[in-house]
């Protein structure tokens, strides 16, 4: 599992590669928690680019739900970019489709924060 962190303006972009399953999810949780901590209480604007995530289980879902809740607490937002059909179906099943904004291009995702 690999996670690349980029910044575009005040937007944090995490490019995630691999399966968000079981112990793999801890790395993502740690990176998100670090970014929230480093923000010092300022709103965080984050894009999770999941183009290269083939599979996610309830642990992975738990990490992105926890990120949503923590980031929203400080008036920030986390959105999903390029999610595949299986992850979309998981989010629909878990009734989280109304919670996560989803975008197909990075430009659209960034524009959503403006």
């Amino acid at each position, binding site marked *: 599992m690999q996670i690349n962190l980029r910044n575009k303006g005040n937007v944090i972009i995490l490019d995630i590669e691999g*399966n968000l*399953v079981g112990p793999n999810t801890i790395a993502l949780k740690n990176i998100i928690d670090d970014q929230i901590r480093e923000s010092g209480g300022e709103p965080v604007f984050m894009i999770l680019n999941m183009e290269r995530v083939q599979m996610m289980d309830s642990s992975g879902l738990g990490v992105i739900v926890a990120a949503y809740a923590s980031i929203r607490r400080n008036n920030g937002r986390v959105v999903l970019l390029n999610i595949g059909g299986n992850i979309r179906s998981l989010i629909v099943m878990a009734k989280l489709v109304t919670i996560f904004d989803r975008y197909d291009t990075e430009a659209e995702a960034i524009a959503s924060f403006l």
Partner: protein
Amino acid sequence: MGEKTQWRIFLSLPSTMQLIYLIDTVISDILREMNFDEETQEHVNLAVIEAGTNAIKHGNKEDINKNATLEFLIEDDKLTVVVTDEGPGFEREDVANPLEPENLLKSSGRGLFLMEACMDEVVYEAKGTIVKMVKYKQRPNL
């Protein structure tokens, strides 16, 4: 009358989450061999990983001296997966519904729900230390 194909495969794992990938590897190959469609493969794969995670993490509390056992019964018309742990068990009705509004933003508690949503049948036996899940090649008429 043609004879029914039936294969039984066992996987017994020490209870460490580092071995979850083995469950993924085995179930992925079985599902491909059985020619389930792609969406069904993803659903069953997820359900089996969730059941394995529950057995290792919640049942056996990641005690490597305890084993999580997965039995795959492959038949022409269905796949049955039986997951067993050595833990104290649980009551299904004590696990909250993750779809209730007050639970939607909780970071855990979706495993059983996903197993039940992805499989055709899920039965908990021996206080939940044995979970039997079935996926049919063609969904039976209920």
